[in-house]
């Protein structure tokens, strides 16, 4: 099962994604962390997410770019968080954004369950400089492609999951 979870800032996406994972069988839970830790704000964010996951039996893999390099045991339940960070690192840190989607396709085949967290950044109506506009466009395309291959997609609206596609697993 592949699931895509989207939503705005601070809306409870991570909490909901973790809840989905905890409803699945408790074996080989892997958390793929994509955020680069570079300032106090990101340190706090990582600490909060780690505390949230603490008792849920995850092995954490750091993967700021090149998702295909992660060593995932077949049959694992993987929580990938998140696409916006992964894309930003690939685009602005000397990587290759084109390798994200193939790596995700490989993960869908390898994992028993793959839960992917992304973000809705598309609704502020601001025209940004070109590189940011390109980023927004690429993120939107990734979201569409991943939703296309997902069994379940939902937008989390202030803690409430609103189904976009399929049925929530284990409800």
């Amino acid at each position, binding site marked *: 099962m592949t699931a895509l979870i989207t939503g*705005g800032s*601070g809306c409870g996406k991570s909490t909901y994604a973790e809840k989905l994972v905890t409803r699945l069988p408790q074996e080989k839970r892997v958390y793929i962390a994509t955020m680069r830790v570079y300032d106090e704000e990101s340190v706090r964010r990582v600490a909060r997410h780690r505390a949230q996951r603490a008792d849920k039996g995850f092995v954490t893999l750091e993967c700021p770019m090149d998702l295909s390099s992660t060593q995932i045991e077949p049959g694992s339940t993987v929580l990938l968080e998140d696409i916006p960070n992964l894309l930003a690192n690939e685009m602005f840190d000397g990587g290759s954004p084109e390798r994200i989607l193939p790596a995700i396709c490989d993960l869908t085949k390898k994992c028993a369950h793959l839960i992917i967290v992304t973000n809705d950044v598309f609704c502020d109506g601001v025209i940004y400089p070109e590189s940011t506009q390109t980023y927004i466009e690429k993120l939107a395309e990734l979201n569409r492609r991943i939703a296309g291959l997902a069994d379940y997609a939902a937008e989390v609206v*202030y803690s409430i999951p609103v189904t976009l596609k399929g049925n929530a697993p284990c409800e």
Partner: protein
Amino acid sequence: MKLYIGGAYQGQDELAARENPGAEIIQNFHEKVRTAILKGEDPKEFARGICLEKPDAVIVANEVGAGIVPMEASERAFREAVGRALCVIAQASDAVVRVVCGIGARIK
């Protein structure tokens, strides 16, 4: 408790008033969160306080979290604080209505 949310000027304020005659309606809740965090309050605690003090209130807010993460740290903190506070309100609410173009969709 009930929660009405939507993008800017989507008519959540009017719909909340129309559907809840006589109820206490707290408009522009997102701006109240801004005021609270400027005073150094924790947004979730602020929201829990409202839930305790006004359990029958109708809360109306703008959704503010669905854009590019702002460069300005205070703007990032504001968006995230509104999200955290509204998660608390949504959990405490019997009904959550999301309003687009004046039309409400009940999501809880």
